[in-house]
């Protein structure tokens, strides 16, 4: 295959990728190449700018009212919350454990 034929094959492949026509396996292989081959990213960007015009006549549909609140909660509230909760949980367990241990020591000392 000459260089220009290879270039052409890549352009067509990029078109099939952008159209969503590659199989899952072909898609994975192509995405691995995208990481290291900038010319493929350029071909995809070109096709995308063209094919995206096919969505021009798709009208807007408002997502459900509570959708953004849920998204905000997932992205902004819960990012650190579970970690903090886990940490504070273990801190509470540590403090309680220490108090109980001290209590036992006091009881032993009193008994002596």
């Amino acid at each position, binding site marked *: 295959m000459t260089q220009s034929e290879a270039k*052409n094959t890549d*352009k*067509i492949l990029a*078109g*099939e990728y*952008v*159209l*969503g*026509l590659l199989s*899952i396996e072909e898609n994975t292989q192509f995405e691995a190449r995208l990481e290291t081959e900038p010319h493929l*990213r*350029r*071909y995809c*960007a*070109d096709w*995308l*700018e*063209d*094919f*995206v*015009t*096919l*969505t*021009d006549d*798709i*009208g*807007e*549909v*408002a*997502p*459900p*009212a*509570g*959708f*953004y609140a*849920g*998204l*905000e*909660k*997932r*992205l*902004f509230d819960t990012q650190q919350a579970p970690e903090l909760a886990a940490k504070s949980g273990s801190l509470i367990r540590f403090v309680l454990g220490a108090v109980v241990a001290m209590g036992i020591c006091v009881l032993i000392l009193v008994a002596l």
Partner: protein
Amino acid sequence: MAKTEELERLLTQVAAGDRDAFGDLYALTSGKLFGVCLRILASRPKAQAALWSTFVEIWQDAKSVPTSGLRPMTWMIHVAHQKSMQRLRLDLADVSPEMLADEAQTKGEWPEDLVLKPSEYGQLIKCMEVLPWERSAVFRLAFVEGETYPDLAAHFDLPVDTMRTWVRQDLQILSECLER
């Protein structure tokens, strides 16, 4: 009014972790992106799940827009398109209750110039006119409706290999017409 420059500015702010900018970007683009997801998936719960993944990726990956070589709205539609196609392929049904919370529809206000105008970027449409009608329809069915080669082959009552040949030949014609 959401012009490309405004979306660029918002995406730059989102990339820097600006939550208010993310809210503004959502208000300006979620209707169009949900429309795209719905068209591909034809199911509200699945389209909501795809939209959810789309905005998670927008929040996490906005920094990659400048190097993608894409205009902001194209990049966001691309993300919505990919998330919808992944869901369509894998037919995931794991929609969390919070995604389904509040099915009530609200009608937002949408700037008229948000959607890309065919008159400005109509080169592809012009080039597609040189193809026989049914062959130009293939691109719409694939990109907008999410049809795969086997779907397209069934649609046109052709063997899958013939379908693949059609698409490759026509991509070649389009590529030449678009002068690449």
